[in-house]
């Protein structure tokens, strides 16, 4: 388990606080009064059955969706008052956000330019090496398998070294080695002071990595837990129970 006394460099720390988040799509309520706190150097695991509102919640935290009600604050900044908050968020969604006609390197360089990096080509080289994608760096993304594209998408989300990293089912399509590398990286990022959110159906990874767990069911928080989190089998049982109740 992570040592709570680990130093948290101020330049990497940014807490997230969401209160009373609601989201309606027409008459359908996707989220109903969800509160979330993600201190810096913490990893929040979001669990729940399909349609529980997990992806909606992370897209709202990322600033991609406006909540119908509720507020989100990053450190001291309200996102609508501070556009630069977007520059502190990295997001891995269901889709890869890659351009099929661009090579792996060009996709990362473009993402770096969007974030006004001084040397996006150098940053792209670093990330390709970290993800073990050097051999594929000059191949177009349209030729990538699901797993390779997911690894590139994860690199893309980190191109600007964000302080808040949101992962929506990032293990999808990854082979065992790539999944283990991602899990280790998440631990390193947390130790480095980042605020992390991991939406997953993988209870083993959730139990291993999470400092907090949030179980959504039918748009509501059905269960919360703090570290040490229950085991994978216990989380699975709780999840089934709450899903059946909802």
């Amino acid at each position: 388990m992570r040592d709570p006394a680990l130093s948290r460099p101020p330049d990497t720390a940014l807490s997230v606080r969401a209160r009373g988040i609601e989201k309606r799509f027409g008459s359908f309520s996707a989220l109903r009064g969800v509160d979330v706190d993600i201190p810096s150097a913490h990893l929040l695991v979001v669990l729940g059955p399909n349609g529980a509102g997990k992806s909606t919640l992370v897209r709202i935290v990322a600033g991609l969706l406006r909540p119908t009600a509720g507020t989100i604050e990053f450190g001291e900044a309200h996102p609508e008052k501070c556009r630069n908050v977007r520059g502190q968020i990295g997001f891995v969604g269901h889709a890869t956000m890659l351009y099929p006609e661009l090579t792996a390197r060009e996709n990362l360089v473009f993402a770096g330019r969007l974030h006004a990096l001084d040397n996006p080509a150098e940053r792209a080289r670093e990330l390709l090496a970290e993800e073990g994608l050097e051999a594929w760096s000059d191949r177009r993304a349209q030729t990538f398998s699901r797993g390779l594209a997911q690894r590139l998408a994860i690199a893309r989300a980190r191109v600007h070294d964000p302080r808040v990293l949101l992962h929506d089912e990032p293990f999808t399509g990854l082979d065992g080695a790539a999944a283990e590398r991602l899990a280790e990286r998440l631990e390193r990022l947390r130790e480095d002071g980042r605020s992390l959110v991991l939406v997953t159906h993988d209870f083993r990874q959730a139990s291993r990595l999470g400092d907090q767990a949030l179980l959504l069911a039918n748009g509501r928080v059905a269960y919360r837990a703090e570290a040490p989190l229950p085991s994978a089998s216990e989380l699975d049982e709780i999840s089934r129970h709450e899903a059946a109740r909802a």
Partner: protein
Amino acid sequence: MRVALAVLWKDLLTEWRSRDRLVAMAVFALLVVVIFHFALPEGTGRQIASNAPGLIWVAYVFTALIGLNRSFSQELENDALSGLALAPGERGWVFLGKAAANFTMIGTVQAMTAAAFGLVFDLDLGSVALELAAITALGTAGICSVGTLIAAMAVRTRFGEVLMPILLLPTLVPVIVGAVDGTEHLLETARIPFDAVQLLIVVDATYLITSFLCFEYVLDE
């Protein structure tokens, strides 16, 4: 500004590699010119010359609709639009990059359309090519500024491809009035009319500034 240049670079590079938008626009523009050729009654050169400004701008506008429609639909693939929405700072720079890319691609097809128009209708556009390019550039800047904004608004709607021309064409009336008037004077007198240019500059500036500022809210889901 670096964000705008990055988006411009990305759009032109992806188009260079796929060529789907340029080819679609070019083929469509050529077909419009050919259809005009067969649809219009046989007439003297003078009659054709008087109709040419309106006809050529009809071809330009409908060709631009195809390009603008595709401009944001490619961003939906892999949800790349969310990547653009997550860029820090003023989202207007993303708009400016997209609009500049649209301007470049539509302008390329317009040059080819004008050449085809001159050949098919036996018009001497070569002697006023620079002046015609200037007026076309002003008109296209207006089309691309408001068109890029509306394309971004329409792309996530269920009937985006239908909605876009319905929203865009009425807003293009002042652009078309200025551009057709300017082209008509140019073909008659071989000089650029000040009134038409003035109108186009005012409309372009209005659409450009409005679209730049509104784009912040358009990229939200």
